[in-house]
């Protein structure tokens, strides 16, 4: 009985893999296609790599998908072989060679610097159950309303929109590491169908761009978004976008700009202006950065680069303290019925304390203010608007914001890029 069940599951898994391949095959791909319009699905290149068997894990797919698209086919094949064997070596090589976004030509190579391979495979495996309200991501779903409240509290302190008193939806959001789209979809739902009508919520969203390096998760997020007609409409009009890309690519202008009317994407010869967002969100992302391939500092600096002056960088993460170790490692990842998150979701050593985030952001603000000709200097970080509030999950009650509990585990943080 059990054998047959597990066989069935195995068969199910196998049969579920190929659709990713087939779906990529129907997308026409041309090596000469200029990067003008919507980002071409990178996984279309999978076409030329039939040697990768579907039984290899998803990292291989995604790594392959993030390859440079302008190299000759032979080089590409060589690189992909290398990557299959030693992905981290390639990543560590490519990371330091990154150049500032402003000096980047439009056809520069993709970089995967902030994407961690282990994390990718872990979360891709969770893809099918991501939207199950009773599944392993339940705890994230429950936290989601607090994210809206925290953003609203940030906007109440300082609005990036030119007219802070108006309630028109004007803000462009970028969600980095959107995963299955828990936050991105909920925010997209608050975008008014009629752009001139007042925004229904204090988050004042006018557009949302959500990016994640995992092909599976983006695919699943798009599928789920179609189940809500409002969100589906936003997906069709482009006010809401899911992009299977990295932050570095967005900064390099390889991804479409937040507004469809932007000219930077329609003119390939012009200087790529990095997309400018009013709010960049980083929910539960910082603790998943692989220190081997990237540093939180360079990652946060890139996030700040994507921000308009006056905009907010808002995130949430977990602090690295003894209570947080007990709560997040011992209790939360304990077997059912005590545990609430799947084993291996978090790695304690990657957790970051509020002080560390704050330090990186100060440094990041200065670096983000660097231009080709001058350094940003400490003026950029002076008077940094910093907000931080802890949250605690109480079983049976839910998530509660508890100021002062930042050192206990989960906390929200936000920083404003001054005008």
């Amino acid at each position: 009985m059990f054998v047959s069940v597990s066989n069935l599951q195995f068969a199910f898994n196998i049969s579920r893999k190929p659709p990713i391949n087939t779906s990529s095959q129907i997308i026409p791909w041309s090596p000469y296609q200029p990067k003008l319009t919507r980002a071409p699905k990178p996984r279309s290149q999978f076409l030329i790599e039939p040697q990768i068997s579907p039984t290899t894990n998803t990292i291989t797919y995604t790594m392959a998908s993030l390859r440079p698209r302008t190299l000759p086919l032979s080089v590409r094949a060589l690189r992909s072989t290398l990557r299959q064997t030693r992905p981290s070596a390639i990543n560590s090589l490519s990371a330091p060679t990154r150049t500032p976004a402003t000096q980047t030509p439009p056809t520069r190579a993709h970089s995967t610097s902030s994407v961690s391979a282990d994390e990718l495979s872990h979360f891709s495996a969770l893809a099918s159950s991501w939207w199950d309200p009773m599944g392993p991501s339940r705890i994230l779903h429950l936290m989601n309303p607090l994210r809206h409240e925290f953003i609203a509290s940030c906007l109440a302190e300082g609005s990036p929109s030119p007219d802070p008193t108006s309630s028109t939806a004007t803000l462009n959001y970028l969600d980095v590491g959107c995963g299955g789209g828990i936050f991105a979809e909920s925010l997209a739902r608050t975008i008014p169908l009629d752009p001139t009508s007042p925004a229904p919520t204090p988050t004042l969203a006018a557009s949302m761009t959500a990016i994640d390096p995992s092909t599976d998760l983006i695919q699943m997020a798009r599928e789920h978004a179609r189940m809500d007609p409002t969100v589906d409409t936003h997906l069709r009009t482009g006010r809401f976008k899911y992009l299977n890309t990295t932050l570095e690519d967005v900064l390099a202008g390889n991804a479409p700009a937040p507004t469809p009317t932007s000219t930077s994407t329609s003119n390939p010869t012009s200087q790529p202006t990095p997309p400018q967002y009013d709010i960049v969100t980083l929910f539960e992302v910082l603790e998943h950065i692989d220190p081997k391939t990237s540093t939180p500092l360079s990652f946060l600096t890139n996030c700040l680069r994507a921000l308009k002056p006056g905009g907010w960088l808002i995130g949430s993460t977990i602090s690295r303290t003894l209570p947080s170790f007990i709560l997040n490692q011992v209790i939360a990842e304990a077997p059912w019925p005590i545990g609430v998150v799947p084993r291996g979701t978090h790695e304690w050593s990657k957790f970051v304390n509020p002080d560390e985030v704050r330090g990186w952001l100060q440094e990041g603000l200065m670096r983000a203010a660097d231009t080709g000709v001058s350094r940003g200097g400490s003026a950029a970080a002076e008077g940094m608007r910093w907000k931080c509030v802890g949250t605690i999950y109480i079983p049976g009650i839910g998530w509660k914001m508890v100021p002062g509990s930042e050192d206990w585990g989960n906390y929200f943080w936000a920083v404003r890029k001054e005008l």
Partner: protein
Amino acid sequence: MRPISRAVLRPYVCPTCRHGISAGRRRFGSKSDSPELYDVVCVGGGPAGLGLLAALRASPITSKLKVALIESQDLRKAKAWDLEPNQFSNRVSSLTPSSVSFLRSIGAYDHLDVNRVQDYQDMQVWDGQTGSRISFDWSMETSPFEDMRTVATMTENANLVRALLRRISDSGDENLSLFSNATVASIENGSDLKPEGPDLSAWPVLTVKPTGPAAETETPKRIAARLLVGADGINSPVRSFADIPTQGWDYGRHGIVATLALADPATQPFPASKRTAYQRFLPALGGPIALLPLPNNHATLVWSTTPENAAYLKSLPTPAFLAMVNAAFRLDMTDLTYMMGMQSSSSSPDSTPSHQDELTWRAQHTQLPSQIPPPATAVQTGTVASFPLRFRHAAQYVSPRVALVGDAAHVIHPLAGQGLNLGLADVASLSKTIQYAVSHGMDVGDLLTLERYSCERYLPNAKIGGACDLLHKMYNVPGEGPVAWARSLGLGVVDRLPFVKSFLMKNAEGY
């Protein structure tokens, strides 16, 4: 029909052909096939369904939601409902103060005809077997110098429904569809409107069919609901669609209702505005009799008794019926059991006054308690009716894109007059949940949204329903014995311990 046949055929069709089939179907009908989308569709236009709609329209957060209500009765008639000032409908409910404050908060209370509404400040409850008594009022919490607090407010359901309809039409007709005189012909899951439409395969799609004269001219309408609310009563079609089972039992009792006119009270109440409700448990006859005040010295009767007794009482001529009601508040169990078996006037014409004679004669030999209501003198014609008493509780209140409120979720014994109040508390909780969801970007039909409503209401409803069930069972043990002693002791203790009594009253009133 189509989704089922497709699902059944699916394994037998090769993948490419399967693709072709669905593509072809899409090409034909996706435009005409796509149902109209609504955020909240409420089936049932009773006080609960209309209360939800009025609450959603009243809140600035949810007033932009596209809502629909489907009701098989004529809502225009309900909105134009009117009666003579001294005529009262026999469907009357008591509203607890928390229900009243909910109705005030959504602006519906102002539309209530206050001349047809009666507050009462005192409730006398006693045991017909042992005579032990309890008096519910707020005197232990208020000083003698302020006005007595209301225990409950009596209102006709028709008055409440009319007020809610007026409140809803006050909010304008933007984003609002009232399908009056219409029934739900079918509820099924929608389909994936690929490639040019959203995936509605998890959305309930209702076919709304007009009834009555409009049935020939109007075509059935298909509407899809982000959240489908079942406020459609004990045999809820929405609940069957969601495949939610219910537990419960029939009490084997009927409730008799009637509108009565009372004689002037022997002693004027003090203060003059004070009104009293009376309830006497009659263990030998199967349940309590209650007389609840209405304006101008009228009262509504609710008498829970066995179906045989109910049939007997309904067959009595008016004077005999009045005599039985007055006897039920005055005489001993033995006398009442005897009178319940007396030949009615139809078989022996000379015995027409016999019920009154029996009452007069027997009352002389009974020590009357001090708290009896003034005698009933007249029955409003056509108001004597009965309905079966049942207990039902749905296993869940929510399922994806479905929520149950009111009688669709729970039906309880009416002895505490809580049924409508639980329904309104459901509606208050569900509308609050929807407000929270809309202001936090949540999908209002999502289980993560709805579970907040279910968590908030399931236990309180089970508690009240269970308490009413327990009281019913305790007060159905006839004769003297340990149960009678225990309930008398309990009643006496509660009556003498103000904090226990105020705790119980607060529970009953939803504070």
